[in-house]
């Protein structure tokens, strides 16, 4: 089974994103604020004449705010498309692409609050078990929370 995963670091944890959902990994420079938007929307950025809505993954998971480098520039983002809109997921570090060694299985151990919401289960990789994160849940952030409440 050729199931590729993109390993990224969010809030200090190594997690996997389904690589099929990922269009590219970019370095974001300018970030335009969106006043009054949900807190996990970090802003807007432009990529090759497209507008990207930048999502702060850490914020979306209720794990604090992703620290921005001091000069406010260069930050790695994972570009995904959902329902015709393009998003950039702000992550700490983009590490590697690995192959999944099996289908995701439910994780029975108790997870942190934020992670629970976005979890698609655990996948085995060569580097050990990894949490598979649901991209839509990351983007939905606030709404998901509202619905759950």
């Amino acid at each position, binding site marked *: 089974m050729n199931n590729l995963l993109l390993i990224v670091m969010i809030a200090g944890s190594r997690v996997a994103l389904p690589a099929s959902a990922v269009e590219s990994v970019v370095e974001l420079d300018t970030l335009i604020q969106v006043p009054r938007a949900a807190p996990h929307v970090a802003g807007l950025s432009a990529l090759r004449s497209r507008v990207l809505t930048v999502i702060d993954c850490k914020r979306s998971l209720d794990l604090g705010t992703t620290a921005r480098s001091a000069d406010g520039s260069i930050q790695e983002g994972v570009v995904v498309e959902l329902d015709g809109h393009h998003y950039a997921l702000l992550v700490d570090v983009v590490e590697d692409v690995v192959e999944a060694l099996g289908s995701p299985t439910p994780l029975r151990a108790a997870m942190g609050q934020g992670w629970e919401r976005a979890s698609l289960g655990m996948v085995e990789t060569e580097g050990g078990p990894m949490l598979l994160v649901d991209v839509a849940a990351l*983007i939905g952030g606030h709404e998901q929370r509202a619905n759950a409440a």
Partner: protein
Amino acid sequence: MLAVIDRIGEMVATIDAGEELPAGDDSALIAALQPGAEGPALPAVAAGDIKSTAAPRTIRLSVELLDRVMSGVSDMVLARNELARRLRESTGDVAVDGAFERLSGIIAEMRDAITRTRMQRVENLFVAIPRMVRDLSADLGKQVLVDIGGGDVELDREMIEMIRDPLTHIIRNAVDHGIESPADRIKSGKREIGILSVSARQSGNQILIDIVDDGRGIDGKRLVEKAIATGTLSTADAAVMAPRERLALIFEAGLSTAREVTAISGRGVGMDVVRSNIERIGGTVEVDSTLDQGTRMTLRVPLTLTIIPALTVSIGSQHFAIPRTAIEEIVRANGGSVTLDRIGGAGVATIRGRRMPEIALADVLGLESAMADEERTLVVLRPAGGDVYALAVDRIHDHEELVVKPAAPAVMATGLYAGTTLADDGSPILLFDPGGLAEQGGVRLEAQERAARVVEALGQPAKARELPVLLFRGLDGGRRALRLGVVDRIEEVPADAIRFAAGQLRVQLGDSILPLAGVEEGTVFEGKVRLFRLSDGVSEVGYAFNEVIDLMGLTESLIPAARPGAVSGVALIGGEPAELLDAHWIFAEHASGRAGGKPSICRLAADDPWVQNLLRPIVEAAGYLVIDETTELAADLTIALEGGTEPSDGGRTIWLRTEPEAAAAGTRKDSIYRYDREGLLKALKAAGASR
């Protein structure tokens, strides 16, 4: 039957070809039409005779594909903008620039073409009308003749879908409430068949759709009574309402003048929905009605949805865009005609006697702004389905045509934005939804506009009528002023865009070349030149200037110039004398090719803004040379507002009244209601012919 149609088609083709009609024998066909004559195939048309009519070559495409191409082209435009920016940053290589220019041109052309593929003839919207009206009128026992015009006007496919329901609703209303039963019509001296005319025409980048019936009209007084009864309107407000405002009450929710509810309409839901639907797509609905004479509804909708003219503004360092269709005017908060008050913590702005809520964009957005309230600029907005309010922004930047895309759901959830777009410099810009802004800013829309008008109406006599003028410094340093109405926009061009060509100075602006005025002979241009783009609705003229001083109201009387020329007179503006430019002279002198025989001369009051800004274009379009009281020329025609003075010189006089009904006390029998455009044009034509 089909054979008859074939035969007619054949005859038409022959006529088109300029040939003599073949002495074909139609009697067989005629016989076939006789009752009972059904049957044998008709030998009248031999197969060889049929000329293949040249049908336009068409193919069918799925709408989805077109949408994809359209969005691809939009992306292309944005990509081009970015490339343009990159090219500007790097050192210019002429060959690359040239190639890029060519690419730009091709993309622009392609965008036009693609936009056209999305266009549909309004006919598609109109074809269903006759049938609908026939069914309706049959149900109601009325006789209605439908007259449809302008079906070949083209409109964005999406737009057509958006206006289908509102249009249907208006037509239903017209047939149900507007047009009377045949008996009633005869009683009131009309033909028993009512006429409903639906027509479309293009005006600039807007499409106007008129729905006119000759029915009983809308009773403004009844509307007011109803509105008072339902509590939508206070008695005091009602007393000072203009007839037009009364009619506009039909757009309020829950009002209907229908005595009884019918199956078709009259439940009081409807016109408010019509208005909000139309306004949602950036259009407007206007209503004009004369009791017992009929009603005219005018829908104005923009040509397309995807490219929106917008104004960019900023708070602190962040830019935003506001759709231009919602903007009524822009004023400086510290200007003379503006006062800002804090009432119970809420901002209230009074602009030329008109009171409206004021919100600071920085507060709504929770952004830092170091600017004091007084230094801000107020943008007066009229959101879809709502009333005016003033939005205080830090800075106004530019008018741009933006390719707007929907924003991500998380962004749209704020309710503040209508979409996102990319500016020329490649950075994303958020486009505001004016209605959402007001809501988030805590402005209660609806119902306050009338209150605002009251202030206006009461405050009017005290304030002299102000003519808005743009005060600026000309290239030679002189203080000059131009009527704001004629200034389309301000442009900045590189000096080499100005050339002496074909007998006069001309300036290139984008794809068009305009004559340039305001320049003395021998002036050498350097760097950037700023100019006004003046428009009379048909032709455009550029007017070069040095700097804009301010937007002012002209109240002091004008001292006329000694002889006709570019300057019509001198007036005190802002405490100092300034020359008021005669836009008409500028156009007469510079705008190309509209000479011809000696025109009739019409005298209009120079000090009345209504006359100057609304009436004058009509009169000029009718072929008159317009002069004012100060010009010593024998006028063939004078148009005066009722209550004005009798003109001294000869010639005919047309009187205009402000009330639609002529019956009101003190009005002349022969006067024309000032918005009765047809009546006015007829009178103008008659006066011109009798000369």
